[in-house]
């Protein structure tokens, strides 16, 4: 079965991204396909590479990047939500005149259409939020 996962909240503030990550991992372990993980609202903050969480706790951004790399996941950060909240890749930096980028490994910034496409192409859309 194909899943699209939507993550509406940022790292640490709410449990949403933890639940989404563990669900995604479990789905992959069962042999399902993750069509896309789409980060919306404050969920875009899961894609900053600048977090320094305490050593004795989970590194939320890093583990999404690692899961993404291990399974070739499509981790998409919504461009409109990212612009509002300051998650920037090279393309966005150039387009919007920013002097830095901060996107984490394995994430890409793209439009809301990616969420809609995910919902169309997947068998299930599962939303994690507040």
């Amino acid at each position: 079965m194909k899943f699209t996962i939507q993550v509406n909240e940022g790292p640490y503030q709410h449990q949403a991204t933890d639940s989404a990550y563990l669900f995604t991992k479990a789905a992959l372990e069962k042999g399902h396909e993750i069509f896309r993980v789409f980060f919306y609202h404050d969920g875009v903050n899961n894609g900053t590479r600048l977090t320094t969480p305490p050593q004795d706790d989970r590194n939320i951004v890093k583990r999404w990047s690692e899961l993404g790399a291990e399974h070739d996941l499509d981790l998409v950060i919504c461009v409109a939500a990212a612009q509002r909240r300051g998650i920037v890749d090279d393309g966005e930096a150039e387009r919007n005149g920013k002097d830095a980028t901060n996107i984490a490994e394995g994430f890409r910034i793209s439009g809301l259409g990616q969420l809609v496409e995910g919902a169309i192409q997947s068998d299930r859309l599962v939303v994690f939020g507040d």
Partner: protein
Amino acid sequence: MLHIVNKSSYDRNSLDVAVSYKADGDIFLLIEDGVYAAMKGGAAASKLDGCTVSVLGADIAARGIAEDKLIDGVSVIDYAGFVDLVEANEKVQSWL
């Protein structure tokens, strides 16, 4: 439909709202802070009367809720079970 409820019933009305949309055959999955509603003796437990309820084991364990403190008839599942529930239900709603 699979109704996923992640907020404490004592804090937000999401469980009340979700249950008010119950149809035959629906399943209620409590995750995150939503699991508190399934505790025996709590005022929220009666909201689940007549519902088919599962709770995520990892979330009750995190919150120090032993399985014998849950209301009768609740299934405790793991994340693999969560995936199975989503697979088994064509319609899924998250009552955030």
